């Protein structure tokens, strides 16, 4: 080994003590744990997420710091001023290292805010604020997870908010401390456990108001990173409206109160939704029935259409018929009058013509009467001459005339002419008629045939 020494350890320890005391005096901020006291000094650890430093403070200095009674307690956020100190111990006493605090005060908003702001910028740069906000939040979750303190107003307020929503699904409680250095890991663990349950659709993280120091767990970097990367939407409602914790930035929704968180977790107002649904159902029913009824009415109207048109045509026709009848009656009356006038004229003329014809007739008759008389006379004469001729002819053919010329007529006893020799022979006797009378004659001998 090619190193200086070996030196006596006591000398080295003294040298170390001197070196430590030369180090720059600074202020440290962290959460107090393990507070204890001896006769001369107070001791505690100051720690945050990354590490811790053992601290000591002379009681005189502590008194001068004028902290409120009980302020130096586990979980308090403190700012201490001082520098590193090494107690070199001795032959009997154990050595120790500590941060020798000469001044002490409670961490103020300013201290925390400065720290918070740095962390906020860091997470924002990494894009962790946006991840949760891109998640779909169901409007009507059936199961929600809630991380909060088992006792406290936040739990009660959240339940009241859910009840006002008309929501009565399932709440899975992930109870966790919400203040002090154990809070952040416990909250992160609860959130992760809830998110691992498939039925949990949203997670609410809530606690009541307090100082920023009280709410400091919700600014925890690990917790906030856990929330940012979660696939289940987280609704934060930490502190009051004026408080702004880092979890608010990374959560899907940041609410000012647990009541608001209830509304964000169940966006749907179930009471209103039930009313809306009834209205929608009624509207559908109306639309369905209405559509059929309206069309049935329309169809009915259409069906009546032809009948109405027919009726219209019929009325129209009847009207025309009435008009025609009226017109024809008027026309008839006029025509009758006209015809009557015509007829009167015609009759008068006819009468006149008849009278004239009668007069003419009479003259003609008289003329014809004379002619007739003349022609009748001539006809009579002609007939008389014809008669005379006929009489002469008749006389020429009259058997009586023949008889006068010496012929006789053979007659039977009954007066019938006997015209053949046979008949005369058969009769045995005939009567011979002469112009001046009859004689009986006996037939003798047979018939002598003419040759």
């Amino acid at each position, binding site marked *: 080994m090619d190193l200086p020494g070996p030196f006596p350890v006591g000398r080295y320890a003294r040298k170390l003590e001197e070196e430590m005391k030369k180090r720059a005096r600074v202020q440290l901020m962290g959460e107090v744990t393990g507070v204890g006291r001896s006769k001369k000094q107070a001791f505690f650890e100051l720690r945050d997420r990354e590490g811790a430093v053992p601290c000591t403070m002379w009681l005189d200095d502590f008194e001068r710091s004028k902290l409120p009674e009980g302020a130096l307690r586990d979980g308090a956020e403190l700012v201490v001023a001082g520098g590193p100190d090494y107690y070199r111990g001795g032959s009997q006493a154990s050595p120790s290292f500590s941060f020798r605090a000469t001044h002490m005060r409670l961490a103020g908003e300013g201290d925390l805010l400065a720290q918070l702001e740095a962390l906020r910028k860091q997470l924002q740069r990494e894009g962790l604020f946006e991840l949760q906000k891109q998640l779909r939040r169901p409007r009507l979750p059936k199961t929600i997870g809630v991380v909060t303190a088992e006792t406290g107003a936040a739990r009660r307020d959240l339940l009241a908010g859910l009840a006002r929503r008309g929501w009565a*699904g399932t709440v899975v409680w992930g109870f966790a401390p919400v203040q002090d250095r154990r809070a952040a890991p416990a909250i992160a663990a*609860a959130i992760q456990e809830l998110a691992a349950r498939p039925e949990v659709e949203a997670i609410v993280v809530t606690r009541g108001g307090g100082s920023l120091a009280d709410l400091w767990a919700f600014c925890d970097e690990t917790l906030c990173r856990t929330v940012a990367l979660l696939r289940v939407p987280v609704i934060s409602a930490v502190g009051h409206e004026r408080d702004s914790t880092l979890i608010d930035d990374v959560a899907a929704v940041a609410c000012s109160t647990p009541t608001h968180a209830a509304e964000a977790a169940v966006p749907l107002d179930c009471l209103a*939704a039930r009313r809306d649904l009834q209205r929608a159902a009624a509207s559908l029913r109306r639309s369905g029935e209405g559509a059929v009824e309206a069309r049935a009415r329309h169809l009915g109207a259409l069906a009546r259409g032809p009948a109405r048109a027919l009726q219209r045509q019929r009325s129209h026709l009847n009207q025309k018929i009435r008009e025609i009848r009226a017109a024809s009656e008027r026309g008839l009356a006029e025509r009758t009058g006209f015809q009557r006038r015509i007829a009167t004229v015609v009759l008068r003329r006819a009468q006149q013509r008849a009278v004239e014809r009668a007069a003419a007739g009479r003259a003609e008759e008289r003329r014809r009467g004379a002619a007739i008389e003349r022609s009748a006379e001539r006809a009579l004469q002609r007939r008389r001459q014809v008669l005379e001729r006929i009489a002469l002819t008749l006389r020429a053919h009259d058997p009586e005339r023949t008889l006068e010329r010496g012929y006789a007529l053979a007659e039977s006893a009954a007066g019938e002419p006997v015209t053949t020799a046979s008949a005369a022979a058969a009769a045995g006797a005939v009567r011979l008629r002469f112009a001046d009378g009859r004689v009986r004659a006996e037939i003798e001998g047979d018939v002598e045939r003419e040759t």
Partner: protein
Amino acid sequence: MSEKPESYESAVERLEEIIDRLDSGQAGLRETLELCCEGRELVNYCAAELDAVGEGLKELKLDELAAKLDSQAA
């Protein structure tokens, strides 16, 4: 419509579309009847969803939930 809606909100969204369409009076008879039928199914679905969160608040603790799930699995 026979497919189950994706979620309550998608069902309500579709239902609002249907009612808007019906209110417009532009849907024919067949479309109206089909929309009414679809709408009724959506209303039933939504009513069932609302009923599921209307029968009384159930509160579980994480460890109770774990025990319940374990017993169901067993």
